[in-house]
């Protein structure tokens, strides 16, 4: 004797398979999103200790908030510079390591070491190394006459952001390298061999064959790294706390400050929605243009 199971509960129907995921997404993605939208039309009134309706105020504030402009500028610089450096360095190192020679497997394993360190701890490590009094990086820069040790990297307005970017670049270049390495491994051998026989130089082969054939890999790296770079928070939090002044306020850090320090819950939510919109639009465009598929 069999129970009559409703049609949507049988395993041929997608519902039972997707239900846990959908429930999770509803509670932890759709609900926060809706809550954020609700919050963006309210503001926490400290004296009343409750939320009051403020209409479009928070959204209008976005357009004449100089600190937001500053944060967007810093975010753009941070994302573009880190992404460019990581792509170039990552590609060069991948070219260097792409061989079946003995010992290179160990190097590739060592490269994955950086990926498992919590970014907050990486931030602390580089804070120590960039310390003007006893930091190794500061000492090396001084030795090579690039930067005097009298200049504290993370406390100088023009240098603080670079100091943070060094940590990011150190930690995530290996990530790019590993992905490019896999990409290089997947390339067919024939075009390269025939190009070499025709007497093409290494440079020509790299720019005319390797890079174009890796275009999809590059697009995926730009997408994943770009999203993460635009959301940068950990390094800023532990290395500079946004300082000196507001020189290293990224959008995420500014949002967090508005929320946690200024208790501007409504404006914080509005800022986080802005970040979401920017990332979503940019990422969707990239996915469309580069035809990245899942």
């Amino acid at each position, binding site marked *: 004797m069999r129970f009559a199971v409703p049609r949507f509960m049988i395993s041929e129907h*997608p519902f039972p398979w997707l239900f846990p995921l959908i429930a999770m997404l509803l509670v932890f993605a759709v609900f926060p999103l809706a809550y954020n939208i609700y919050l963006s039309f309210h503001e926490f009134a400290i004296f009343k200790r409750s939320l009051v309706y403020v209409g479009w105020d928070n959204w209008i504030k976005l357009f004449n908030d100089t600190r937001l402009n500053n944060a967007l500028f810093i975010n753009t610089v941070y994302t573009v510079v880190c992404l460019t450096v990581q792509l170039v360095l990552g590609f060069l190192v991948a070219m260097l390591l792409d061989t079946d020679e003995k010992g290179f497997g160990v190097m590739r394993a060592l490269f994955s070491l950086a990926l*498992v360190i919590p*970014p907050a701890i990486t931030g602390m490590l580089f804070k120590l190394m960039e310390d003007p009094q006893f930091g190794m990086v500061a000492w090396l820069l001084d030795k090579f006459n690039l930067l005097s040790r009298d200049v504290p990297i993370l406390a100088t307005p023009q240098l603080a952001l670079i100091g943070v970017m060094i940590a990011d670049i150190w930690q995530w270049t290996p990530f790019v390298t590993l992905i490019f390495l*896999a*990409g290089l491994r997947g390339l067919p051998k024939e075009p390269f061999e025939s190009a070499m026989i025709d007497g093409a130089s290494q440079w020509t082969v790299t720019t005319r064959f390797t890079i174009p054939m890796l275009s999809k890999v590059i697009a995926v790296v730009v997408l994943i790294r770009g999203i993460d770079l635009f959301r940068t928070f950990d390094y800023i939090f532990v290395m500079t706390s946004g300082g000196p002044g507001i020189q290293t306020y990224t959008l995420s850090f500014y949002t967090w400050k508005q929320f946690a320090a200024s208790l501007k819950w409504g404006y914080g939510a509005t800022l*986080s929605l802005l970040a979401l919109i920017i990332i979503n639009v940019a990422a969707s465009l990239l996915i469309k243009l580069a035809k990245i598929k899942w």
Partner: protein
Amino acid sequence: MYSLKARVLRIAVAWIVTLIMVLPIYYWVTVSIKRDKDVFTLPPKLFNFAPTADYFKAVLLDISPVQQSIESRGSLGFSGGGMSYMVPRLIDSMIIAVSSTVLVVSMATLAAFALSRLRFRGQHHFVYIVLSTRMLPPVAVAIPLFLTYKSIGLYDTHIGVILAHTMMNIPLAVLLLKSFFDDVPLEIDEAAIIDGATYWQIFRRIILPTMRTGIAATAVLCFIFSWTEFLFVLMLTATRLKTVPVATSAFVTSTGTQWGSLAALGVAALIPAFIFILLVQKNLVRGLTMGSLKH
């Protein structure tokens, strides 16, 4: 094809690059076993120092440095109080990372199976929605969760953080597992269906056993991302629990940073994660790109 000279040169350059990459980690390890007087000195002492286990003892065994002899240490000694014992924080990290990994992998294997095997309306949109949750800035989720958790009592609890980390890792797990499941040819399903198998049986008898390594790789990455996550733990916990990345702030005191203990904790936290990642080397890149690149 290349001359011996070129090969040797390449090996040399590759090792130099690798060593430069590893140098900060090596330096961090030395900080964890160096006395303060050897840390606060230039040129940096990379080899010529007398190692000490004081910091590891303080962080892992709760042997307070006060009990250890004073004169054996540098002039600066330990700054701040004796809040260096970090095993409870490592346990918190472990509970959170393991539980959220189990949750996310069980949910994601089911969903990935449906996305890989069944055909239904709006499937591509669904995949895209899952992907777009990866684009949510953590702050955007953390603010509403903080306020909600406060009012329903999940604030500062393990469950609260576990659920947040589960959410964070869902897009990675679903997309990656889908890419693994797509590797199993559909003909196998068809043959099984002709033999009278249901989709549940295909899942249990065919997909799960053949995709064990893929699921393991997914689990490892989810574990690592939870293990290293910072913002959710920062915003959703207060005093009862802390994971390692946030716990490091305990070493940053008003009288200075306890670099030795901080480095010891960092090294202790690095080891399990590194072992895990070595176990999945083969599928690492596929995981890091959420399954969009397979080789």
